[in-house]
């Protein structure tokens, strides 16, 4: 089943599951509104576009507002879409509201967020380089990345530095996906989802949650059992 919902990361806490403590991230999902249903005939593929969170009207253009108005909703701040197969595209209709309870009976999810920005970071923090020694005559180069390849050798690609060479630079504030996080609990009333472990991004940031694909075999069997239960 392919399903994606947008939501907000609220924060972390821990809950008891079968007498054991489980660290969880609390996500408030939706309510998301279906703002467009794309079909093979009209768009060349089957997909569903969702809108989430009200936008300020003064920041919206008329075409943007009209797009959401077609679905009968107020202007939305975020729009994301996901592909669905031909069989299930009929389940979605314009203006339909989807919330966390859509994830009932789903055991594992992938969560996509924007990681926390770390600014301009050195090689040690950004790529886990070891740096240089603290003593033994090392001066002012304790956290330097070391050699980045010379003119003559192939590591430097003769006369220039290889593209993509790991060096200092901006770290964080990019899209990160954590895969196959177990769903611990779903609160349909408040549209909350509790997933095990941390999720990229700061609290209050936008996250996208989708059903896990490509699970490990042990997790896949578990997911199947829960889906059929």
């Amino acid at each position, binding site marked *: 089943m392919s399903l994606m919902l947008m939501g907000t990361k*609220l*924060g972390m*806490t*821990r*809950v*008891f599951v079968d*007498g054991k*403590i489980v660290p969880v991230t*609390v996500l408030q999902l939706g309510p998301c509104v279906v703002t467009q249903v794309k079909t093979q005939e009209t768009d060349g593929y089957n997909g569903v576009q969702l809108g989430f969170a009200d936008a300020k009207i003064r920041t919206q253009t008329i075409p943007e507002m009209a797009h959401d108005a077609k679905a009968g909703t107020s202007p939305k701040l975020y729009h994301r879409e996901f592909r669905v197969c031909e069989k299930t595209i009929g389940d979605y209709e314009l203006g339909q509201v989807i919330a966390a309870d859509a994830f009932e009976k789903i055991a594992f999810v992938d969560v996509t967020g924007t990681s926390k920005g770390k600014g301009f970071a050195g090689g040690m923090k950004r790529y886990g380089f070891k740096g240089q020694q603290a003593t033994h005559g090392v001066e002012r180069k304790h956290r330097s990345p070391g050699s980045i390849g010379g003119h003559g050798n192939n590591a430097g690609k003769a006369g220039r530095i290889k593209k993509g060479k790991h060096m200092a630079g901006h770290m964080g504030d990019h899209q990160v996906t954590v895969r196959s996080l177990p769903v611990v*609990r779903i*609160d349909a009333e*408040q549209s*909350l989802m*509790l997933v095990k472990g941390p999720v990229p991004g700061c*609290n*209050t940031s936008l996250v996208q949650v989708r059903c896990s694909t490509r699970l490990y075999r042990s997790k896949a069997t578990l997911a199947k059992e829960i889906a059929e239960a």
Partner: protein
Amino acid sequence: MSTQMLIESLNDEALKTDIPVMDIGDTINVHVRIVEGQKERVQVFQGVLISRKGRGMQEMLTVRRIVDNQGVERTWPIHSPMISKFEVVRRADARRAKLYFLRDRIGKSRRLRDRRRGMEHVKGHPTVRK
């Protein structure tokens, strides 16, 4: 409802309301549920409460007892469903919040002074913290 309140409300059901007033230094009984396959039994761990830390759902407590002249410490989340009951056996005077110094004590100096008023000072007060 603020976000913080919302997150904390997730644990409302798990929070115990029947925890007795236990201070650091008190000797307490901890009734631990032990699940072995289908069977379940209760084991009582008696010792001195030497540490309580954290608050709300996160609160942990450490109990120290001496078994065969060997110190044994166990730490649990205070709201753990694996603990069925706490009992206060003896109340003692402690001047610190954490009694880690007991780990270095041997023999008689391991003992803590009884509260002079015994259990008197809790009389009239609710013994269960709401």
